[in-house]
């Protein structure tokens, strides 16, 4: 691998609507070098790559500060096409391939070699016909460069998942006659053997002078393949180090890290009864991106149980599966009785409640007023806020009660809004989250699932949401299950914390446990080298 830096990123900083996502991140990438970029979700990895690739989302939200230097010159891309022209290829996690096209057609999409014909003069250059042999020849050249055997004439739709991945990489190679290839979670959907072949192919590419940025949650793979590792946390560069100078444990520690101001949960012994309120056996949940393979756990009454773990390992799937929002299976016993998890209505009626992580998608009626948002679920399931007319024949919406409950929670959670009739869309992230919380509290549930309660909201709202949860648990003795990727938060509020890795629970720890122990569970004890 040559030592000449082909790419350098100097003091890159970026702000999204006020919260700082990247601050002064710098690293270099040499020719033919493989760089492993690792970090928690939301640590800024994808934003960094979007800046490199000139994605519109960056320019639309105010651009970035700092310099991107290629071959020693400062460049600034304001569209992906500039990046491609500069020789940068990007392979996203979800395939951007045309299923009905063959591998050749996909690899050479919009770069097809053409044959001239007279009509061009009349109707413009796109009347040229495709030169199929040349196309096939160039596709095979790109595939061989990868060193894998893909049939160039096979339709992508009929390809195994691994081959799709290789086709996309071949396309990026061909499209940008790439000198830098960025791979975002390439092995997430691959089987063991397919991942092996991919890593071997990437090494072969690197030898031929193509530099690679490899983003993955599978730290073991990153350690096997990368020459250098860059670790990001909360938008800051934690370390940029040669792989052979570090090991898995250290990397995890950097990734998870412990910010100074967090204190372990004050260990006043809360008398948590041993009665099991919820017990889950071999739960599987088919939630896109958050597959739960086989999870079993018990929750004791009055306890606050936390679920942590890296993104995409399945922790978010658990509550969505139990509440029946995604196809799921396995046995769930609530207060001893079997729960039919496909019927959301019955589960809520029995006393389960769920604050979804997808606030705008599932958690809110964006075009309806605040009071509706808060009272809706309770009204539908527990028939609250309804006036019974003609002996219950007609259930009339009691707007007064709805107004009052909304006013109560607006005061309690200090929701900043013009009136109870303001539509949810116009509120800030923090206030919207408070409304979702209020919606669940109105149900006064026996067990409350809360997913990513503090993601993407300002610090003040974060504090208030966590306080509210703690206080609600203390006052009503409601069992709370919190799913969050913020390990600090979990440690500051939960009685026990379970870590989910690859769709399974890899271990349950007390909040006071050491960070490395959490790190180990996150990466899956089986992978320890």
């Amino acid at each position: 691998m040559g030592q000449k830096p082909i790419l350098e990123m100097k003091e890159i900083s970026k702000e999204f609507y006020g919260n700082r996502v990247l601050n002064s991140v710098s690293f270099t990438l040499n020719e033919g070098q493989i760089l492993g970029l690792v970090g928690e979700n939301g640590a800024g990895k994808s934003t960094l790559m979007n800046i490199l690739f000139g994605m519109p989302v960056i320019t639309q939200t105010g651009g970035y500060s700092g310099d991107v230097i290629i071959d020693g010159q400062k460049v600034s891309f304001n569209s992906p096409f500039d990046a491609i022209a500069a020789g940068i290829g990007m392979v996203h996690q979800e395939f951007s391939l045309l299923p009905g096209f063959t591998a050749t057609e996909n690899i050479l999409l919009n770069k097809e070699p053409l044959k001239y014909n007279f009509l061009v003069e009349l109707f413009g250059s796109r009347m040229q016909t495709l030169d199929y042999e040349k196309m096939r020849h160039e596709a095979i050249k790109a595939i061989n460069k990868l060193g894998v055997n893909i049939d160039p004439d096979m339709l992508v739709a009929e390809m195994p998942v691994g081959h799709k991945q290789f086709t996309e990489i071949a396309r990026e190679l061909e499209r940008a006659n790439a000198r830098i290839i960025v791979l975002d979670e390439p092995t997430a959907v691959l089987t063991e053997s397919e991942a092996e072949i991919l890593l071997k192919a990437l090494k072969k590419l690197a030898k031929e002078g193509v530099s690679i940025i490899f983003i993955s949650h599978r730290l073991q793979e990153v350690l096997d393949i990368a020459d250098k590792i860059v670790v990001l946390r909360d938008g800051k560069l934690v370390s940029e180090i040669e792989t052979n100078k570090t090991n898995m444990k250290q990397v995890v520690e950097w990734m998870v890290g412990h910010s100074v101001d967090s204190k372990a949960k004050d260990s006043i012994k809360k008398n948590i009864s041993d009665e099991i309120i919820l017990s889950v056996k071999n739960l599987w949940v088919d939630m896109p991106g958050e597959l739960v393979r086989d999870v079993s756990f018990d929750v004791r009454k009055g306890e606050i149980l936390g679920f942590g773990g890296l993104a995409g390992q399945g922790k978010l799937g658990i509550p969505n599966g139990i509440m029946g929002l995604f196809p799921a299976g396995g046995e769930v016993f609530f207060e001893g009785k079997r729960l039919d998890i496909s019927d959301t209505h019955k589960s809520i009626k029995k006393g389960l409640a769920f604050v979804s992580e997808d606030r705008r998608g599932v958690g809110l009626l964006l075009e309806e007023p605040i009071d509706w948002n808060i009272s809706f679920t309770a009204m539908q399931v527990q028939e609250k806020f309804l006036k019974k007319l003609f002996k219950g024949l007609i259930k009339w919406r009691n707007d007064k009660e709805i107004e009052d409950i909304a006013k109560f929670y607006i005061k309690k959670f200090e929701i900043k809004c013009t009136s109870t009739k303001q539509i949810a869309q116009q509120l800030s992230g923090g206030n919207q989250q408070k409304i979702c919380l209020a919606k669940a509290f109105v149900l006064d549930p026996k067990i409350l699932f809360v997913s990513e309660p503090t993601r993407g909201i300002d610090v003040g709202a974060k504090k208030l949401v966590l306080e509210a949860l703690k206080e609600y648990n203390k006052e009503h003795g409601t069992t709370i299950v919190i799913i969050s990727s913020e390990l600090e938060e979990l440690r500051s509020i939960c009685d026990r914390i379970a870590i989910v890795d690859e769709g399974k629970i890899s271990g349950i720890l007390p909040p006071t446990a050491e960070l490395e122990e959490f790190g180990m569970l996150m990466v899956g004890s089986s992978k320890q080298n």
Partner: protein
Amino acid sequence: MKENLNNINEKRNFGQALKNFIDVAGWPRIIIGIFLILLFAMTPIAKLRLSTSLSDTLVRVGMNAIMVLALVPMVQSGCGLNFGLPLGFIAGILGAILSIEFNLTGLKGLFSAIGISIPFAVIFGYAYGQLLNRVKGDEMMIATYVGFSSVSLFCIFWLLLPFKSPVMVWGYAGKGLRTTISTQKFWQNSLSDILSLRIGETFYFPTGMFLFFALLCFLIWAFFHTKVGTAMTAVGSNPDYARASGVSVDKMRTLSVVISTVLGAIGIIIYQQSYGFIQIYNGPLYMGFPAVAAILLGGASVHKANIGNVIIGTFLFQGILTMAPSVINSLLQTDMSEIFRIIISMGMILYALTRKTKGNR
């Protein structure tokens, strides 16, 4: 200095008031509103009596209003514009014909027609709702062709079903229904004449019809205040939210389709009651589009509609359809009413379909 300061911001907040009036009302309504007022003003020039044209408009508004109201439930529940309204019309026609077959006249005839048509409408609506639930996303196109094919299917039934009443059956063949059946001797204007007032011999106001329309509006308004109604609005606004709150999305959508079909059936009967004829065979084929155009003109969008849109929309739309041809015919001595009807109704729908909704960025 001071005065022009405040008359500047006077001008500014007048401009401001005008601006958000335009935003609230939206351009199409303003253009057509001004056009309508212009037409009313031109009636004397076109040697037409203002009173007759006004009463014509009002009668037509009363006739069509319920058909426009029928669209509200499905739009609210997220099924989009109900191009399959003709399905409801068929149920209504079935009821009307059976009531004439049993020779029922007057109000009794009218309400029995409605009574008979409701079960049909519920059955059709239920099946139609189940179908729409399986094709989420492509509702509008499929609704159109389900409507067309059911109308043409019933053309065959009108021919074959054994109807006896002489008023309806073809003279010579003695079998199969005529294309238009007059409701003169049965229940024409039976509803509109109740407490109808007649000022001078030109102005006629069908109070009965408007009262019935007001009753149905109240029922729909009330429905959307009940628990089920609120759930339906939520399903339209964000199906995932509704599902997460334990509401069965498919049940709500089917219910909204059934209500829409029932209202469609009632709407067509009221239309026939005032129009005086039952048009069968391909009569109802294209009658869904004016109703859709009217509600869009009233300010409804593809996924939000309320009763206000129905009233404003029907008045503006029917106003234009009655006034424009008669005024222009008398001015230019040409009958352009057909062209007007097509351009305005289809133009409105086209305008709504090409708006940037979150669906098709």
